[in-house]
């Protein structure tokens, strides 16, 4: 259809060109009507705030607004880089983010391979329903459960440990234990759900591969190592790139809920700091600058990992 229009336009006069455009526009008009509600919302609550990022380079005052506030250049960025919170939040964010990837990335793959090996249909179903279940628990309830279970005096873990005569340390107020609590509770909640995509990739593998391997005398473990894993690699790389791009935006809600004054040295991350500076201390410009710094670093890491992956495995997002 496109070529027809292009060929035709060679001999058409300017006026009929306009009328073709007009016809197309008329055809699209009802579709624009359908787009209208979402576009309006996006402009109001995404693109206008996006413009609002300029206050990172200004001294924002509510009276003067986005436009009128005076420019100050990189003042707020420099203020953040020089504050003692900079090292702390970067260190904690990177620790939690990298720890999450290290544990949370391979485990869903392992779980999918495990689930794929279960041949009893009924049991497989029960296994899947059970492992997906915790994903639907709200962050609030999850954090409530963590606080209840890990309570040093009479929590579930304390009681279970006392059965074997071990005393429960107060890990909720220990800064260095924070990342472990965060990462492993996340594994408990999401490992099953995160495995779905790998399970789908596994079920798409051509069964003749397995048959051929069986004929050659391969055991189950060998089939996993030489068929399953190589064929999961492209899916895994894409997900790794996406995760790496989010390494600095660790699950902010969960961190905020599990924070207490005693573990703050291990639990203050960039995003919680942005929240506190911005909406509790009302330093709007500083908070925006820190948030912008975080986003920029995220995008850089995403592009970097994407580039490395393209070089090494020929898989990439873009």
């Amino acid at each position, binding site marked *: 259809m496109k070529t027809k229009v292009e060929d035709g336009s060679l001999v058409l006069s300017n006026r009929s060109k306009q009328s073709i455009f007009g016809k197309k526009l008329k055809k*699209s008009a009802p*579709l624009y009507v*359908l787009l209208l509600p979402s576009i309006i919302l996006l402009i109001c609550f995404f693109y206008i705030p996006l413009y609002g990022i300029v206050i990172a380079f200004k001294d924002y005052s509510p009276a003067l607004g986005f436009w009128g506030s005076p420019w100050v250049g990189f003042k707020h960025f420099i203020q953040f880089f020089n504050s003692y919170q900079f090292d702390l939040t970067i260190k904690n964010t990177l620790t939690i983010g990298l720890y999450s990837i290290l544990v949370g990335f391979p485990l869903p793959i392992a779980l999918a391979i495990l689930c794929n*090996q279960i041949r009893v249909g009924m049991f497989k179903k029960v296994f899947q329903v059970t492992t997906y279940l915790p994903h639907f628990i709200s962050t609030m309830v999850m954090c409530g459960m963590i606080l209840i279970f890990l309570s040093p005096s009479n929590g579930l873990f304390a009681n279970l440990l006392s059965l074997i005569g071990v005393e429960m340390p107060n890990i909720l107020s220990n800064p260095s234990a924070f990342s472990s609590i965060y990462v492993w509770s996340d594994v408990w909640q999401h490992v099953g759900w995160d495995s779905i995509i790998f399970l789908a990739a596994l079920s798409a593998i051509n069964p003749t591969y397995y048959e051929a391997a069986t004929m050659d005398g391969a055991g189950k473990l060998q089939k996993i190592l030489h068929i399953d894993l190589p064929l999961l690699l492209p899916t895994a790389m894409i997900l790794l790139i996406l995760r790496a791009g989010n390494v600095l935006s660790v699950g902010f809600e969960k961190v905020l809920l599990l924070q207490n004054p005693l573990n703050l040295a291990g639990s203050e991350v960039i995003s919680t700091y942005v929240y506190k500076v911005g909406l509790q201390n009302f330093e709007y410009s500083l908070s925006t600058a820190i948030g912008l710094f975080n986003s920029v670093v995220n995008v850089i890491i995403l592009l970097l990992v994407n580039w490395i992956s393209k070089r090494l495995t020929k898989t990439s997002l873009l």
Partner: protein
Amino acid sequence: MIAQRLTIPKKKTDIIFDIAIYTVAILMIVMIIYPLWFIIIASFSNPADVANGNVLFWPKDWRLDGYIELVKQEMIWRGYLNTILYTIVGTMIGLFVNITAGYALSRRELLGRKWIMIVYILPMFIGGGLVPTYLVVREFGLLDTFWVLVLPFSVSAFNIIIARTFFKNSIPETLWEAAQVDGCGTLRYFITMVLPLSKAILAVIGLWTAVGIWNSWFDAMIYLSSEHLQPLQLVLRRILIMNESLLGQASGELATELRALSEMMKYAAIIVSTLPIMCLYPFLQKYFNRGVMVGSIKE
């Protein structure tokens, strides 16, 4: 005979492997179910027994005090009602804006489709950030209103892409051609022909939106200040995280009793707030899974 010769005997290592697989799988099921089971039995047990570790597998000294105290709290009811309202209205708005956009973007005749697509995808990667968004919401006068939780952030690029993929792949182009011959316009075609054929995608997106709203609390925390607008999750925050004593203050023996009762209320609150999703989940599981699958197929 030939078939028999072709079957290769099971390897010994494979049998060991199978045993290992099933053992790990059963262990995992126990590790996931036990904490949830513990919450249930603890909510029905004597709090002293729970604290001393006497309740491990079965409720002890049955009682319903936690639930009774919980339902006496007015804010639980209000939170529950608010969350139900937010979920219903928010899901309807979310379905409306995302399905209409997804359909329009799936049509090839849409002029400037590529550019419009970028407008929708950009929010997935960048954003204005917390403070600029807050300031804009405040500027629109939405602070501390019902609408702030259901309207401003209802557009989801992810849902739009899922819907678009579905419309592209599942609604035959010939249907549109036939409708055109009969003189049916785009909007009427969308409403009377496409939507009835799209129940599956409506269910997937609707369910995801509903669960997301039911479980969310952060927007409510920063944008709402009135107590009568608080959703359930913020009420839970007061009970579970901030450890607020909702039963008042007391001293001496009464204080210990009150503390025990607050502990029971925590278990009851977890059950009561999570029950709707947990009950629906087994029946709706296939829709949830389908969402992940559809979403993972790009183009």
